[in-house]
């Protein structure tokens, strides 16, 4: 199949099999920032925004979301133009091996877009679909709190 998607704000045509999962199609078409983790919807490494909602791309048939809006972590910010949330993760030491980080950035972005001043419990709930085996989560939660403060201070619209 070859179908249109809006990925990171741009029209893209992806080539994929009818029974293929979105994580595979994205990676096969160059979006390697979407990590292939557990393929069971447990770890959150493959997380993307689908019409602004965080979802596990490994739990979606590509053919079921044609023409939809997809945002990967590179659509939020990249090495040259990192987003406030990405900077906050680096500054808080919330990145160790880094494999889970794209998923956490996506989850944090979705949360802060809806609620720029979340409580700690709201942060924990927002990242309940992401696993990190390195950091122990403390620094990740700190990073999201710090990003929240910066977003409010600088009055940034996400």
């Amino acid at each position, binding site marked *: 199949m070859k179908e249109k998607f809006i990925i990171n704000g741009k029209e893209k045509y992806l080539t994929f099999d*009818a*029974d293929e999962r979105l994580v595979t199609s994205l990676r096969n078409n160059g979006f390697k920032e979407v990590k292939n983790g557990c393929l069971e919807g447990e770890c959150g490494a493959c997380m993307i925004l689908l019409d602004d*909602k*965080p*979802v*596990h791309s490994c739990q979606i*048939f590509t*053919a*079921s979301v044609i023409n939809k809006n997809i945002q990967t972590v590179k659509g939020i910010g990249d090495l040259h133009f990192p987003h406030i949330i990405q900077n906050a993760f680096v500054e808080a030491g919330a990145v160790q091996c880094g494999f889970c980080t794209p998923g956490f950035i996506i989850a944090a972005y979705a949360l802060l877009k809806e609620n720029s001043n979340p409580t700690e419990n709201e942060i924990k709930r927002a990242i309940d*679909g992401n696993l990190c085996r390195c950091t122990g989560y403390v620094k990740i939660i700190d990073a999201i709190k710090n990003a929240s403060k910066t977003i409010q201070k600088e009055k940034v619209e996400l």
Partner: protein
Amino acid sequence: MNNLKWYYPETIREATDLISKEKVIPHASGTNLLLRNLKKINGFVNLSNLPLHYTKKEDNEIEFGSMLTYNEIISELKKIDKENILVKSLINSADTPLRNRITIGGSIALAPPWSDIIGALLILDAKIILAGKNKGEFLIEEFLNTPKLKQKSLITGIKFKLSKWKTFSYRNIRTKKDMPAFHIVEMLKINKHKIQDCKIIVTGTVNRYDQIIKVENYLKNKTINSIDFSKIEQLVNVKFSGKRFTDPEYSSKLAGIEVSRGIKKLVGI
């Protein structure tokens, strides 16, 4: 890859015509379909373009389109009835990204033993709205117990009455991300320290679900300070399969304790 075909209907009529074809099945969000043997399926009917993302409220009744996700249901229902048993049952189900994907229709069509939605719909006496061969409205209990209703039919919505009863939901899980071994839902109508009415359902049992009628009868018309909570534990007596998560005897004992704890919480003890 097999010759799996995808269809993208825009009307319910088109969709029901398509699912009447051999081995062509509806695709709501597909989280379960990913686990199926796709060689046995000829085609998927993608339901996302159908007008099934809706909420209707009329008088004391609410109706949800079957393509609303768990998170959308929680958010809609919280606006009008945040204590609703459906909110309490779904709010801790799966995780945020899965709740953004799992639809109410897909969940009812599948209704696995670990479902977090079925107990709530049973206790609410919800009605399932079907289109296609078995067009009509059916009580959830009838829908679950009549497998042929699913054949060549599409769930288009659910409806139920809102109530002021007190509600309690308990998921038996080992870790936050677990599917529940069993799920307890309770609703109590209390007036002047007396239980006027109550409903208790445990899902995930060998019977798929059990209404705990003995406890309901024991509690009806009882004053709060005359309740013997150890008796409730004994009256629960539900059976679990040995094949799932843990020892069935232990689960049975635990279900009794948790039903009792739920009642305690609802009556404020």
